[in-house]
């Protein structure tokens, strides 16, 4: 147990406190981490989800990493806190991919903790060449602009890919991310596999609401293709949308609630591949379009799950050691990627936005 300075408050606190910023992280650091801060020498993998970091001093800190659904109840948080007390003096952290990590100084406690986590339904893994947790957004759980749900797809995809979370047998890392609309809260645009919620219909203009809730000049300026024009409807100022120019980005809805985008029939999911953030070997890069549209099919989105699993399996079978998705595709070329995965190449795969010509094949380098 780690004591923390708290003021238990009944009802209204005495004095209003603001602008204090986050608590200093130092008071939450395991004593071994505090002692060896900045003095780590190397690390070893002890198997999926288990790491050992060795300090210059010879001290060793052990990490046990488990997957979580990101959306957690306070009861599960308390369970994690109890586990931390039981196994590691109360010290834990979370990763940038929503995994929970327990920090131990006693290696004998690693396996019992792993067993207890697994029995409680939290798989241990996500390290090295595994598929770590899917970074994702709120979806229908808590966002107004979502073109699809996030948690439901993530759960369905990870149910099928959990073997690759608890094992590290892939040629390289696979980072999967999901964003429920083009705003992309999260780095989905640089993921090995990105699952992206999309609209495919222009916004519906609620002429009754536009003058009440929107600044028309801001609304017009929000459109990247200039598809929104001022218009007078029933004697009142409003806007009209040139539908052929709409590419369904939803930015108008972000600035004006009177232009809703959500459409149960047409909204869905697109799949993107080959992006990366790390600089290891090749430079960071954007994900490229693999599948322009798959339907929203809750609760388990079978078409999306099948498409992602297929891409993972084809990659796992064909990529060479250390190759990330994009590096593998670099080597074999896009025509072979589409052939091996059986994904249809369509007119939608050819870019027609601002820098489109940069993505055309501008050489005679070609494989037959």
């Amino acid at each position, binding site marked *: 147990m780690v004591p923390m300075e708290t003021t238990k408050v009944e009802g209204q606190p005495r004095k209003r406190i603001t602008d204090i*910023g986050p608590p200093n992280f130092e008071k939450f650091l395991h004593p071994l981490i505090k002692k060896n801060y900045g003095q780590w020498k190397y690390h070893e993998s002890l198997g999926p989800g288990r790491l050992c970091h060795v300090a210059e001093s010879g001290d060793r800190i052990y990490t046990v990493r488990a997957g979580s659904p990101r959306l957690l109840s306070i009861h599960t948080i308390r369970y994690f806190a109890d586990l931390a007390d039981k196994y590691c003096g109360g010290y834990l*952290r979370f990763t940038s991919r929503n995994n*929970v990590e327990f920090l131990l100084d006693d290696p004998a406690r690693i396996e019992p903790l792993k067993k207890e986590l697994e029995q409680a339904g939290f798989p241990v893994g996500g390290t090295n060449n595994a598929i770590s947790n899917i970074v994702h957004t709120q979806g229908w759980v808590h966002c107004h602009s979502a073109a699809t749900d996030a948690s439901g797809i993530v759960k369905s995809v990870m149910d099928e890919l959990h073997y690759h979370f608890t094992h590290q047998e892939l040629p390289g890392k696979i980072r999967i991310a999901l964003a429920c609309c083009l705003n992309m809260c999260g780095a989905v645009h640089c993921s090995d596999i990105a699952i992206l919620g999309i609209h495919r219909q222009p916004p519906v203009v609620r002429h009754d609401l536009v003058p009440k809730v929107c600044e028309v000049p801001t609304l017009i300026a929000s459109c990247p293709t200039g598809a929104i024009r001022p218009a007078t409807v029933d004697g009142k100022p409003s806007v009209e949308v040139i539908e052929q120019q709409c590419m369904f980005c939803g930015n108008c809805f972000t600035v004006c609630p009177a232009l809703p985008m959500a459409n149960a029939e047409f909204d869905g999911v697109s799949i993107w591949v080959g992006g990366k953030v790390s600089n290891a070997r090749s430079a960071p890069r954007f994900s490229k379009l693999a599948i322009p549209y798959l339907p929203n099919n809750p609760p388990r989105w079978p078409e999306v799950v099948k498409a992602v699993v297929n891409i993972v399996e084809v990659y796992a079978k064909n990529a060479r050691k250390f190759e990330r998705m994009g590096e593998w595709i670099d080597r074999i070329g896009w025509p072979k990627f589409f052939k091996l995965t059986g994904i249809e190449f369509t007119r939608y795969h050819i870019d027609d936005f601002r820098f489109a010509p940069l993505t055309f094949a501008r050489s005679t380098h070609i494989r037959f």
Partner: protein
Amino acid sequence: MDEKKQTKLLDQLESGPWPSFVKEIKKAAATNPAAGDLLGQLELSYEEKKVHWKHGGIVGVLGYGGGVIGRYSDVPEKFPKVAHFHTLRVNMPTGWFYASDALRTIYDIWERHGSGLTNMHGSTGDIILLGTTTDQLEPAFQELTQAGFDLGGSGSALRTPSACVGQARCEWACYDTMGVCNHVTHHYQDELHRPAWPYKFKFSGCPNDCVASIARADLSVIGMWKDEIQQDDAAVAEYAAAGLDIQKDVCDRCPAKCMNWDGKKLSIDNPECVHCMHCLNVMPKALRPGKERGAIFLLGAKAPILQGAVLSSVLIPFVPAAEIVDTLKELVSRIWEFWDEYGHNRERVAELIQRVGMAAFLDAIGLDPVPEMVAAPRDNPYIFFQKESDGSNGDDKG
């Protein structure tokens, strides 16, 4: 059972090996009716394939212009407990480190004032306290600050800065990412809580970039070393003896082709190294970043909205570790000044640079152009030559 509480579609997401968010919502719903209505409304979204949240309204705590995301149901008559269901973004401790009692403190407060549901963590890195009513925002906020926690950024405010685990538990961290991030977060409290500019700062300790700063941050500070990779020949031999194919898995994968393995000795032509991290990742015991450490500053990453996604690009190739904080503050103040005058509403820094041109932007913030900033010089001849004002050849910045 009440008809609206039946969740036949969502119930199907309770099975399977991956932990279930539906189970989590149900656990919270056992003691909190709002979590029950959230489940009901989500079931309706699953039935209709459509979102049921309205556009966020402006709600917040006294004196802050960020940190609360307003959320209202569009079917409040069916699910009155989530008629308003706002989110509090709580600034996480840097590096997402916790002691168990700190978690209990936060979530005891959240049990009293909210839905009992949370994200650990949100995309911004904040602790997301998911869903409460307007009247509970201020009491929850006051209890949180009493307990030593504060809100993060949202909307047009500086977003909560985030950092990788850095020197707390990583041998590759070339500077103290957590220390710098914590300092910067406290320095810009006013900008975080009262919208001045909608920028994101992210701090990674090495080019592996575990917080995706190059993809997501307006200002990406990524750890870098300048001297030679530290090499332990005995450990290299250990890896080779253990079966690592050093030629194939290390040398052949080096993007700079600056490594040579003769079967016994690994040599690195360090001036040719591009600091990609591959060889260090494969042999962490044998190869380590050099001793002259600091960071590379890159600028401008963002997601696609509005004119397409942008990755950060190099602004300052190397800043010594001891100078990172001061350099960052100076840089931000110069960009801020320019942005104040020329920036548009909601405009990210990459969009500003695209609009005015990188060269004009560099003039404005007083940085000299260096070749490290570009993948290649321009390949079009449309050069905006400047007027010769003082007899020089035009390449001064007057």
